[in-house]
């Protein structure tokens, strides 16, 4: 029998339970240290497929700033984070862009979309914007 022990820190709430898991031939036999059921769910998901929201930037032209901040609209498998980053590295967008604008659908086959997280007006770099309202 193949016995494996794994350790997780739960991030569902600020307590951050330190959870120990024991696996026999890849089957979970014990989950210990979790103060609530959500901690066990968290660990089960981490064992199956860890999921993360990705936030990053994409190059943008015609705006005051060089980079547009973006995010995935839902968590994606952790193992695909770098694939998404690589795919985005080759892209250049054109301002104007609005917050929540859909930038790319189904990025890197994750089923998640890349959306803008801020407004990016069309402006010349270095130009002083209207300063009074």
């Amino acid at each position, binding site marked *: 029998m193949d016995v494996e022990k794994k350790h997780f*820190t739960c*991030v569902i709430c*600020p*307590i*951050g339970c330190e959870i120990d898991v024991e696996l026999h031939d890849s089957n979970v036999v014990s989950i210990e240290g979790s103060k609530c059921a959500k901690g066990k769910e968290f660990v089960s998901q981490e064992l199956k497929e*860890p999921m*993360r*929201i*990705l*936030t*990053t*930037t994409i*190059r943008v032209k015609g705006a*005051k*700033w*060089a*980079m547009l*901040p973006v*995010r995935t609209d839902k968590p994606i498998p*952790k193992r695909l*984070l*770098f694939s998404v*980053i690589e795919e985005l590295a080759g892209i250049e967008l054109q301002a104007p862009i609005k*917050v*929540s604008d859909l930038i790319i659908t189904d990025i890197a086959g994750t089923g998640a979309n890349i959306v803008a*997280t*801020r*407004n990016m007006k069309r402006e010349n770099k270095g130009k*002083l*914007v209207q*300063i*009074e*309202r």
Partner: protein
Amino acid sequence: MEADVTVIGSGPAGLVAVLHAYENGAKNVLLLEREEELGGILKQCIHNGFGLEQFKIDYTGPEYAERLIEEIENTDVRYLLNTMVIALSPDRTVTAVNPDKGVFKVKSKSVVLAMGCRERPRGGINIPGTRPAGVYTAGVAQRFVNIDGYLPGKEIVVLGSGDIGLIMARRLTLEGAQVKGVYEIMDYPGGLKRNIVQCLNDFNIPLHLSQTVTEIRGNERVEGVVVSRVDEKMQPIEGSEQFIACDTLLLSVGLIPENELSKGAGIELSPITNGPVTAETMETVVPGIFSCGNVSTVFDLVDYVAETGMTAGRNAARFATASKQERKSIEVIAGENVRMLFPQRYFFKDDLVLFIRCAKPIERPLRIDVSPLDMQFKKLYARPNEMIRVKVPKDRLREITEPIEVNITER
């Protein structure tokens, strides 16, 4: 110019203060921002985790800012960008400068300070060694990467485990840099646990506790740093030195409230928070000048920053529109195992929302006593890197005459 309420700084505290001053009856609200757009540091904090308590939504920093900016655009609040406040007097006259008006003054019925913090630089912790390029504070590196699109280096050592340092360790890893390790002089991490897990553990970035950088090497560019273990008194242990080759050192070693304006206005500063001494109304010791967000004390969560902004905005509007101001005040004192306590005064106007940092970590059930009230709050643990928030209702406080003291003890 004239204003009912003038807010200095448009980060999360300032944006929320403006909205709440406006909603609470201040008609002529003016927001002054030194940068060319509203939002402050939120614009470069592209990670998520903002507003979970306030809005129950997991926003990124820019999304959180856009939401508040949109609310402001829907009011008739005025704002001035590219406008640097250079002086504040105790009579609430604000002196500012911008390219359009030159130097100008704003006479304001009340003022809200929301200038936030600066990062502690290399000089603030006196790291010996040469002075090459490649030493950045974490926030500066964050701006380079997330707004300007430059990678500050390829092989990176992070000193300090504050949240910005942890966030940047992940960000630089995603952008292709190699983060060799995060070094923390204390024997516990500075940042939130979720950031340790999601920024370091997820990417196998090692965290070295009780270690610090004791020398920076390199001529033109950083070539490496020497790290040493430290003893209980945080002094480097001789013989423990280890050389780490790298081209960049990021510093995440603390934030310092922007105090120049406060000092000029004669506002008493707290040696513990390094920000203005403040009451539960967010009013400072100078009548009509309020303070909120990280200029008051460094908060862990934007939700807490926003909460103080709401209180400051509401009370600044109240001050600007009320005819007579009465002031009764008692002290709020940090007792056993309390390293930081905010606010430091009680003015008998609002509920007392206390923000507490313990001195020593306790991983057992504990209680927080608020004396002379017979009032206790029970917690399962207390950690110096996680601020505790408790609320004392104002009707419990009406009759008290002696200072309020807060103690943390094990149950």
